[in-house]
């Protein structure tokens, strides 16, 4: 605690932006954040945002209904590319979710105080992103309404899930991930819900928050167990978050498809996940702090740190891009070598080229501190990375599949309008959930911000 404060103090003295702007007290933090939920009128901008996002969410609903009615034939998937947009979007969304858990769990364990201002909405982002992700494998089933067959239960067929299949691991990984993220998020919310309960004026509001806060009253004994449980959950979520994208990468690597069967995929996927996840964090944080006037709490420090994490993870991703063709070349396996030749020279060369440009080349500007400290630049780079990471999954899924071992089963993948509607629809759904969350729940963890204040420190010997 002590050392940490001094490190922070020194960092600020040496020109780094502070984690929280000076001049705040417990009361101002509490009132500022709870007022966003409780007293701020519904703004026109918010209404427009929710309206636009829900429009796309309804398009998603429509696209999904039509899919149920008609079957996956409305999508562009076919042999040989049987895993088109659905799996691309799935991997993309799961990846985006990873940053939330990284911030809330790993940075908590590493005692990085800057996480406290952004963990709440990053966790919400995780939940909504995983919800978007979870849709795709289910929709991709020929009979989505039978998705419950994926769980082991004593069915009348006496048939169980095949536990040697990575697709079944996925079911467990993603559902565990969603559940644990939800628990973690909810646990973090409990004290803040109590804060809202006690601040709310409207009787119904009070009842709802009171119901959700479960009678939290900030007892010292409760806090003690709460803190232990919080740390334990963080400790559990840390390997979990690694495992989730690892399992997603197993979906590919366990198969012996050239371009998929590569041992680097687990860390490569996780790094890519965090890469895109932090891009999404910035995409959310930059407008939020601007529109809600939260520059005091989400400072340039947060933005810069996120930028640096993006840079680091982006380099790991680039490392993967280099290792794969190198090892394919070294092994001399002609199928593997062809796969990487095809990426750069085949019909999808332009996709591959944009991948390298957007994912590897452009983000290198983050080396420049001025860029890292400019919200507009960060926003643009984040957008670039989000798209780049989507393209990466497209490259892995589509280019690896479109030229099968036999030339007779070569083909192309053409997404249909329903593919696009579903993808954009989930984006709309995601932002709709995010905006609703901003409106009804404290978007910044109030009690954890209070802990950041110097007054929070107990100034007696233990």
């Amino acid at each position, binding site marked *: 605690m002590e050392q940490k404060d001094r490190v922070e103090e020194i960092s600020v003295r040496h020109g780094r932006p502070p984690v929280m702007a000076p001049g705040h007290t417990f009361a101002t933090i509490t009132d500022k954040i709870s007022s966003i939920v409780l007293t701020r009128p519904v703004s026109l901008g918010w209404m427009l945002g929710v309206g636009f996002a829900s429009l796309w969410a309804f398009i998603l609903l429509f696209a999904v209904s039509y899919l149920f009615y008609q079957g996956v034939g409305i999508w562009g998937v076919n042999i040989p590319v049987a895993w088109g947009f659905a799996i691309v979007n799935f991997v993309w969304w799961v990846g985006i979710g990873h940053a939330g858990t990284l911030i809330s769990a790993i940075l908590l364990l590493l005692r990085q105080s800057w996480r406290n201002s952004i963990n709440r909405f990053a966790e919400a982002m995780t939940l909504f992103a995983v919800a978007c992700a979870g849709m795709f494998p289910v929709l991709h089933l020929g009979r989505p309404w039978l998705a419950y067959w994926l769980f082991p239960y004593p069915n009348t067929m006496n048939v169980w899930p095949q*536990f*040697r299949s990575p697709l079944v691991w996925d079911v467990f*990984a993603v559902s565990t991930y969603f559940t644990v993220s939800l628990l973690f998020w909810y646990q973090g919310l409990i*004290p803040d819900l109590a804060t809202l309960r*006690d601040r709310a004026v409207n009787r119904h509001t009070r009842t709802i928050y009171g119901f959700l806060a479960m*009678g939290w009253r900030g*007892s010292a004994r409760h806090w*003690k167990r709460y803190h232990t449980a919080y740390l334990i959950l963080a400790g559990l*979520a840390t390997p979990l978050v690694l495992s989730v994208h690892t399992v997603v990468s197993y979906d590919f690597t366990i198969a012996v498809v050239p371009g998929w069967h590569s041992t680097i995929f687990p860390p490569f996927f996780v790094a890519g996940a965090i890469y895109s996840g932090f891009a999404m964090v910035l995409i959310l944080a930059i407008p939020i702090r601007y529109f809600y006037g939260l520059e005091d709490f989400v400072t340039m420090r947060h933005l810069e740190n996120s930028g640096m994490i993006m840079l680091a993870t982006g380099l790991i991703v680039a490392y993967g891009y280099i290792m794969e063709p190198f090892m394919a070349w070294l092994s001399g396996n002609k199928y593997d070598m062809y796969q990487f030749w095809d990426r750069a020279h085949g019909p999808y060369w332009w996709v591959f080229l944009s991948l390298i440009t957007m994912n590897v080349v452009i983000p290198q500007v983050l080396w420049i501190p001025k860029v890292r400290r400019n919200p507009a630049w960060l926003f643009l780079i984040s957008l670039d990375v989000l798209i780049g990471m989507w393209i990466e999954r497209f490259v892995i899924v589509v280019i690896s599949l479109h030229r099968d071992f036999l030339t007779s089963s070569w083909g192309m993948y053409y997404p249909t309008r329903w593919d696009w509607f579903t993808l954009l629809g989930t984006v709309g759904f995601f932002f709709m959930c995010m905006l609703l969350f901003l409106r009804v729940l404290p978007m910044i963890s109030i009690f954890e911000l209070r*802990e950041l204040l110097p007054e929070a420190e107990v100034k007696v010997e233990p």
Partner: protein
Amino acid sequence: MSLVPVYGLLAEFDNPTDLLLAARRAHEEGYRKMDGYSPFPVEGLAEAMGFERDRMPLVVLIGGLLGCVGGYLMQWWISAVSYPINSGGKPYNSWPAFLVVTFEVTILCAALSALFGMLGLNGLPMPYHPLFHSARFEFATRDRFFLCIEASDPRFELTQTRRFLEGLGGHGVSEVPY
């Protein structure tokens, strides 16, 4: 004395250090049935009041172990006992493949036992609590710190305890009705 049954006496402080010192004093004075209330976890406060062992890790350990063993046994039973199917020539008990789901189930069970264990040990949900009668108590979730000595403590005596609490230098002491 008061005719309304009393839950306890509530003393108010404006910073965590004062609360911690007060709790320490009260513990030295022999009070045991008391609790501190703060808007964020105060390091060492629970211990200052003689907090019993924190059993959270044990609860989570048990949950995790059950998940781990249960998760593996489930897969083994399903794949090697209930319906052995030859898949890609892999052994029926393919432990390398089963480790993944075992891990996930372990985490799931441990996480569930962490949250529900915390709620259970804390006696939550408890939407109704005598303390909520107190008018000032709503600031316990904002910026105030409270120490409540409960009437069920054997050493509790209304006037004497009130005098003791007032002597701790807080911002006033109030009675909490049951």
